């Protein structure tokens, strides 16, 4: 029965067109991600055309000369190397991308951010000062700063304790490996996920809507399993189709992008470019977090649209809900000052930024951080909605359907 339901889903002409567009979108975004990488050769010429495909790999190879633990000595070397290049440059602004012997800016910025905590913006002057600084105690300074952040951003002693515990998990010295591919992909994957969650909502709603739109529901609901197993299989098909479509899209996107740019930097901690984030994850783990949360957002999108379609007997309203959930709620997050607003579903498709927020949810003495909380919350919501979809479908009454449809038309 499930096989038949899936066959019905994948044989639908509209679905075929949408799936083709989604897969094509994944390919296009992959190449746009690759295109974001620009490699400058020693002649200060930026690679263009077909050779740009290899830019990621070439950047990775050069930056990885500095791969390994960022010990105070290595940071001092990087600062010194930068200073020397600066001295030798006629304009005093060395192009580190063309100077193949220079240190990656990532390392310099990491060090600068530890010394410069009051301002988020790192200026060239901050980098200049690194050569004159004694880095012997850089990790002591870092640890002190982390403690200050814990005190500043925690609103309760429990939150402070949690922050201290999280910061305590950061391993000193921080390790470095070129992570450009993961950085670009975290952003591009989110862009693709924003589209996926809306489209998946539409596709899932169609599984329920098809019965009503084609007037096939009377036959469906008069069959032996039309109000039990067949409904259950529709819901499972919705979730399965969501899973297949989502992971096929993300799979293609990841495969092409990382295949061309490489996977260097999977184990580089996120603290390398934001030393004070409370999530002790690596760049690779952050990418996985982005795609897993995107998957949760897709499941939620599918569950909500299926439920609304089952209730209203049409998908015409349901398909707009993911847009509200993920696109419009972005504005709520941007405009609000209330922490609670950060728990909107939009956060699921904005993990890259969510990791930077010091947002907590506290019940008594138990404190949850924003990301694990929204992940658990929306997985639970997606699961909780499923019996309601079942209930709405299995209690179908054609008389109510006529009433609902006529009401909808009246409103229209």
């Amino acid at each position: 029965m499930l096989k038949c339901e899936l066959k019905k889903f994948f044989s639908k002409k509209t679905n075929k067109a949408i799936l083709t567009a989604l897969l094509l979108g994944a390919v296009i975004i992959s190449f746009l991600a690759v295109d974001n990488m620009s490699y400058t050769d020693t002649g200060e010429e930026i690679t263009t055309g077909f050779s740009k495909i290899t830019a990621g790999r070439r950047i990775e190879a050069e930056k990885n000369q500095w791969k390994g633990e960022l010990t105070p000595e290595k940071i001092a070397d990087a600062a010194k190397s930068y200073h020397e290049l600066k001295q030798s440059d006629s304009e005093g602004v060395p192009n580190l991308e063309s100077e193949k012997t220079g240190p990656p800016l990532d390392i310099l910025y990491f060090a600068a951010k530890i010394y410069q905590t009051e301002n988020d913006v790192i200026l060239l002057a901050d980098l200049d000062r690194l050569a004159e600084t004694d880095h012997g105690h850089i990790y002591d300074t870092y640890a002190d700063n982390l403690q200050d952040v814990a005190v500043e951003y925690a609103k309760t002693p429990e939150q402070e304790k949690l922050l201290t515990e999280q910061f305590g998990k950061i391993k000193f010295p921080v390790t470095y490996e070129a992570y450009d591919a993961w950085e670009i992909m975290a952003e591009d994957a989110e862009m693709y996920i924003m589209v996926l969650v809306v489209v998946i909502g539409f596709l899932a709603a169609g599984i329920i809507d098809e019965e009503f739109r084609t007037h096939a529901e009377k036959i469906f609901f008069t069959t032996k399993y039309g109000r039990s197993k067949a409904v259950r299989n529709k819901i499972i098909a919705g979730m399965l189709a969501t899973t297949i479509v989502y992971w096929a899209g993300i799979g293609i996107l990841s495969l092409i992008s990382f295949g061309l740019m490489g996977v260097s930097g999977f184990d580089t901690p996120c603290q390398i470019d934001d030393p004070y984030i409370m999530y002790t994850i690596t760049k690779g783990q952050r990418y996985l977090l982005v795609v897993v949360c995107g998957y949760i957002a897709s499941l939620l999108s599918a569950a909500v649209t299926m439920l609304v379609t089952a209730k209203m007997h049409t998908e015409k309203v349901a398909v707009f809900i993911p847009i509200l959930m993920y696109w419009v709620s972005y504005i709520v997050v941007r405009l609000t000052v209330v922490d609670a607003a950060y728990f909107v579903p939009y956060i699921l498709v904005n993990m890259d930024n969510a990791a930077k927020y010091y947002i907590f949810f506290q019940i008594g003495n138990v404190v949850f951080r924003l990301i694990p909380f929204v992940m658990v919350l929306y997985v639970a919501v997606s699961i909780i909605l499923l019996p309601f979809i079942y209930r709405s479908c299995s209690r179908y009454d054609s008389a109510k359907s006529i009433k609902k449809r006529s009401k909808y038309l009246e409103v229209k």
Partner: protein
Amino acid sequence: MELRFKGVSKQYGDVLAVDNVSYSMETGVYGLLGVNGAGKTTLMTMLCAVTRPTAGEITWDGKDIFRLGERYRDLLGYLPQNFGFYPDLSVSDYMMYIASIKGIRPDTAKKRIKELLEMVGVSKYKGRKMKTLSGGMARRVGIAQAMLNDPKILVLDEPTAGLDPNERIRFRNLISGLAEDRLVLLSTHIVSDVEFIAEQIILMKDGKFFFTGTSEELTSGMEEGVWSCTVPSDKVNQYMQKYPVGNVKHVSGGVELRLLSKTPPSENAVREEATLEDVFLLYFGEKAGDEDAEI
């Protein structure tokens, strides 16, 4: 094997679509006859447990059909008036899907589908998408899907609506062949559909049953006689206003009318044998001339 409804009513807002009807059906073909809007489809949807009655109860062998749920639906084959299907599925995939939700095992379903598609004459189109089928062919698939589970109760709501005369005859014969050992309820506003195949006829008007019985009982129960007479062309309107007129045919020397009257309408009037169509004309009057009703 008895499908019984007792005091069944269905109200949609201010409209009483079915008004306190009671009846009992066993095996055989039952023709539910009435003009459009008589309440036939509403009654059918209640019998198929798609909608619940506002009042009254429907039982199968003494048990409430809504309580029986799956067990009742397992006995049911239904072809609704607006036969909806999944346009992008092929005929055989559509049948396999319906078989799956009817709880038929795939290997059994394949054999059954082959038989049924041959029976309804669409086996050579089994690979074609449902949306490419003509109305007649789609309806044949509709019959086949209703028969998949070899139902004890076969409910066909306006199965011949929109079909050409040849298709209609073919359908009648097909339905007639299916009637053995099962209850077939055939709803239509087309008299000829039920005249030859229904053992029992139910006339429905304004949500009520006002006659139930055989075709012979219906015709013999008519107080009016059926007359055929030729009248001058300029008198046709007078006759049409005075009597229910079934047929108007231009012949040499005037117009030949077939009409209903208790007394001979003219000196040259000849008594004719009453048919179900005459009964329909008598009880439903002008409404009997709704679309397709002339066939």
